[in-house]
């Protein structure tokens, strides 16, 4: 234990120096850090452990954001001790200019990505012929996707559930909105009557674009004198139109990546398409729902049991999201699976 000789006057300068040091380096330099604990195996998630993992992931995310804010002072720091150099080398904002998305036009940063593992708890989702449950697959893929997206330290990634429990659609949506989600990615696995089929498809929320445009035009032409409620509704519709465009772009990017990079053998490209899923409609952020493959296909079910395959799918989802955000595929997107098969 630190033990000062009693009665001696402390050096105030030394204390000030300490305060400064702890504020410079007290927060770990987490930009390149992996989120602390690897999530537990998906097939059985102890609730307690999962909560610890949630807390740890959040702590890492917060620290990362904090350090990111720290790491971009306007003037170059005068004589920083070399320890933090790694944190300073790449202070670029997460989203480079020129990708042409609406967030880019408006100068907005995408910072928070909510990943939504489908089903959970009493609701297993699809169940394969070998009894593999959709809820376990979606949770594991979602966690891998989170870990991958968090690696760069540019995004805060939150899961709507990080253990095996039931979460209602309304709760998922409310969580995303409360968290200030900039993107919402829901992960599902298909089940089809024909076991031979194993399609990949990605949905975005779609209303008929024409009706939205018509309504917008009507509000614009009405001149003065429309009520606050009408105005609000029009603004909401305009927001919806923007969201629709962004959601479609995201869906197309993710679909392409899933088809190109997902380690496809038997899967078919069914495309990105609009659908009125509740989670897609009600989230404020651009939202997609990816059906990563079909559990009704026995070969796919077997492959989904391997960590390597689930990781490849997570890598493809990551690539799709990053391509949408950055306009180019990430360098590390296609790297090797990081875990051995279980």
């Amino acid at each position, binding site marked *: 234990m630190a033990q000062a000789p*009693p009665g001696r006057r402390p050096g105030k300068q030394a*204390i000030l120096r*300490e*305060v*400064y040091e702890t504020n410079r380096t007290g927060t770990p330099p987490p930009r390149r850090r992996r989120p602390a604990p690897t999530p537990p195996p998906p097939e059985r998630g102890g609730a307690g452990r999962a909560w610890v993992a949630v807390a740890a992931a959040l*702590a890492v995310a917060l620290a990362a954001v*904090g350090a990111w804010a720290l790491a971009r002072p306007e003037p170059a720091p005068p004589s920083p001790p070399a320890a933090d150099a790694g944190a300073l080398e790449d202070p670029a904002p997460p989203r480079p200019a020129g990708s042409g998305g609406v967030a880019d036009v408006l100068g907005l940063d995408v910072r928070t990505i909510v990943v939504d593992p489908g089903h959970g708890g009493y609701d297993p989702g699809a169940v394969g012929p070998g009894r593999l449950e959709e809820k376990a697959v979606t949770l594991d893929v979602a966690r891998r996707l989170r870990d991958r997206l968090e690696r760069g330290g540019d995004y805060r990634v939150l899961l709507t559930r990080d253990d095996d429990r039931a979460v209602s659609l309304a709760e998922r949506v409310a969580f995303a909105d409360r968290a200030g989600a900039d993107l919402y990615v829901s992960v599902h696995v298909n089940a089809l009557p024909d076991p031979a089929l194993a399609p990949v498809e990605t949905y975005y929320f779609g209303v008929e674009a024409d009706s939205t445009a018509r309504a917008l035009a009507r509000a614009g032409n009405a001149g003065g004198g429309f009520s606050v409620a009408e105005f609000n509704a029009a603004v909401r519709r305009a927001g919806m139109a923007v969201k629709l465009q962004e959601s479609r772009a995201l869906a197309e990017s993710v679909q392409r990546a899933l088809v190109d990079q997902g380690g496809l053998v038997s899967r078919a490209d069914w495309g990105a398409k609009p659908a009125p899923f509740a989670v897609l409609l009600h989230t404020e952020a651009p939202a997609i729902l990816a059906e990563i493959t079909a559990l009704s296909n026995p070969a796919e079910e077997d492959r989904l049991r391997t960590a390597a395959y689930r990781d490849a799918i997570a890598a493809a989802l990551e690539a799709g999201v990053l391509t949408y955000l950055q306009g180019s595929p990430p360098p590390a997107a296609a790297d090797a699976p990081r875990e051995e098969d279980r």
Partner: protein
Amino acid sequence: MPPAKKTDKTSAPLHVGIDLGTSRSAAAASNEKTTWVESYVGWPKDFVSRKMLGKEVLYGADAVRHRMSLDLVRPLEGGVIREGSERDHEAVRELIRHLLEAVQTEDDQPVRAAIGVPAEALHASKAAVRDVVGDLAEALMIVSEPFAVAYGIDALDGAMIVDIGAGTADLCVMHGTMPTEEDQRTLTLAGDAIDRQLARRLSERYPSVRFGETTLRQVKEASAFVGEPEGKVSARGADASTLGDYDVTDDLRASCESIVPALVEAAADLLSRYEPDFQETVRKNVYLAGGGGQIRGLAEMLEAELAKTGPARVRTVDDPLYSGAQGALALAQDMPAEYWEDL
């Protein structure tokens, strides 16, 4: 030392010390302005309330007064910023923005802020505070609340700070360096615990009467005491049909005294870790700070309890409400410019 870097800012920086508390947050600035606010932030619930209130955000007592029309958030409940709650983070940001706006006289004057946060989970809160405050200030330092208090009263060596807030009571021994975890103890027995205890006792004494949470807190803040009462304390409550004033003197006293044994035990345990000579010095330099420092008779009672096991002198800091903010301000002002510029 290289010559001071030229900045493109024309005005000299404004130094600000902020005490981010569960119950109250205070700021003191180098332009001698001070302000405080109850740590509540409220957002109008809907269109109607927004129109009625005419504001997008309400703070402090204003927010509490209009709580029926607001989503009211007390972001530092329990002494830490709850992780993962955007609302809490946003509320912390609004609180700090509000405090800074109140002390800032010139627009565009760069702000260098030292912020004291509850000692418990300093690390988590640190990241959260940085996260939300980032662009409100040019540079930011975050320290533990009791340390800020100690710095402000120049009790950096051979002293103990007992900072009793709403969510936590922090005990911290200063020995001439930055306190580490080993030098600190945190109890969750503090102002809020007194409130809960008081509400429970009153519900037993007056089973058919309801007392408002805010009412009880106000009564406590005005009249909290331990030991002999100076007079009758009453609180407004409502039974099925009528409002009336009820005597709460004994229950207020018992509630306030309920935190004393734990404080004494924690202080003794913390002291026992140090050399006997040093213990003696510390025992004579115990300072009470925070809202709990305003409990009448508490310093005397703690001193009497500690005196049973050795010498003891317990004093209340001069200005419990501002001691944290003033300490943080002193720290901000003493901090050499080149350290600030490096942050």
